[in-house]
């Protein structure tokens, strides 16, 4: 178990490590493989990994149900926290690198640009989930913990929307994530419907 967890940590940190290395060479040499507009590349990549990890975290439940391996659940919190980690770095890059010197622009951007509004909202909603991810908080919140953490569905929708509204005309990449999300959420709806039907049938007998 400890090895599996270490492996997840290592995998989740790899994109950040690669990026950190490229940023280092960018600072030192001016060509770190981040392209002509390194700031945009850093933002984009951090955002993409936040979204990917969120999708992977959402895939845990269906995978557990399909495989019957309850042990998978132990990785869900870790993956969710890494999604928050990348989302926070994504926001930090936007504030520190992109808006550098124009921080006052942030309020205007959040208010005026729908894609930034939903992206920022998604990050805000992640905070209570991250804060309540400890065992202690789980115990203290009891049933309400599960209810609170259903926010992740809204967050995922906002995150995909954030990506979708950002592209100019080629929607293929955000469409891919929207499809994955639809499958992940659709699975849950389908399960709920099927369970309800089973209960009704059992009650009728």
């Amino acid at each position, binding site marked *: 178990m400890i090895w599996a967890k270490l492996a997840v940590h290592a995998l989740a940190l790899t994109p950040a490590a690669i990026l950190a290395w490229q940023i280092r060479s960018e600072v030192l040499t001016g060509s770190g493989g981040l*392209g002509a507009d390194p*700031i945009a590349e850093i933002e984009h990549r951090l955002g993409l990994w936040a979204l990917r990890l969120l999708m992977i975290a959402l895939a845990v439940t269906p995978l557990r149900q399909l495989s019957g391996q309850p042990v998978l659940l132990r990785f869900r919190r870790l993956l969710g926290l890494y999604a928050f980690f990348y989302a926070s770095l994504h926001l930090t890059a936007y504030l520190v690198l992109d*808006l*550098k010197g*124009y921080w006052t*622009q942030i309020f*205007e951007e959040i208010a005026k640009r729908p894609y930034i509004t939903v992206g920022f909202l998604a990050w805000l909603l992640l905070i209570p989930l991250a804060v309540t991810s400890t065992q202690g908080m789980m115990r203290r919140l009891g049933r309400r913990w599960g209810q609170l953490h259903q926010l992740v569905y809204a967050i995922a929708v906002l995150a995909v929307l954030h990506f979708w509204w950002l592209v100019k*005309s080629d929607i*293929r990449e955000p469409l891919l994530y929207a499809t994955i999300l639809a499958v992940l959420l659709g699975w849950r709806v389908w399960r709920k419907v099927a369970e309800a039907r089973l209960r009704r049938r059992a009650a009728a007998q």
Partner: protein
Amino acid sequence: MSLRDALAIPSSQITDEAVYRERRRLLAAFALTPALGLSGCAEAEPPAPRSLPAASPEQMKAGFRTDEVLTRYEDITTYNNFYEFGTDKSDPSRAERTLRTSPWTVAVGGACAKPGKLSLEDLIKGLAPQERIYRLRCVEGWSMVIPWLGVPLADVLKRFEPTSKAKYVAFTTLADRKQMPGLAYPSINWPYREGLRIDEAMHPLTLLATGLYGKSLPQQNGAPLRLVVPWKYGFKSIKSIIAITFVERRPLTSWNDLQPSEYGFFSNVNPSVDHPRWSQKTERRIAGTGSKLFVDRIPTRLFNGYGDQVASLYAGMSLRLWF
């Protein structure tokens, strides 16, 4: 041997400004452009370099030159929006050299006395290529400073003797599935189209570019012939032109057609008219060597700083309405 080969210098050196200044003197000596059919001349002994005069005050005043720090050749040629080769900015330079730029013909027609289908060489015959150093501002909020080589569009258009009915000029990009892999996906209603009002087209700043950094244009930058309209957002500067038509009515333009609320026909750079996704107040300048990680945004200027030259074209027009 093409001129591009003859003047091949590793891109690592091209980025160096001192080297570039040196090259400019050579270029002047060569009176270059491959379009003029000078291939072969490079094999002769280069004439003694005569120095290209530094930008004169007149050139600076006309907006033909700027002394701002240049964008590296490497950055200009690897960061391109040219959806015919893919929608990622690195796609056009990564794509195989699939675009056949020679021979190249341009059809000029519509409201003019002398329409015709000409080879690129004939189109610009006798017009000496000029070097222009322009700012390029992309609607996405980044900008570059690019040394183009080209001829004023007005000089080319006048040869076709546009009639009084020519109120606008329409341009079309090549759309050939065999040469352009991006056409497989309808990100734009192919072919890509752009247009200018006739007075904008005839403005001395409007350039038909055939070269970049003294070399012929690479595929990703719109080889072999592209428009450069420095006071408008980059997408107005249509690439790989195959047709120029004089028309009476405002022509259809690709981005305007795709999303008229976001991309106006005029698309003049204007910090006070926002795009729904990008504030146009500031921009990130991609220029110079060294790390671009900690550069500040710079304020965007009305007409991309070419207001002295072009503001009169829009006198009395609401730039908010006619964005």
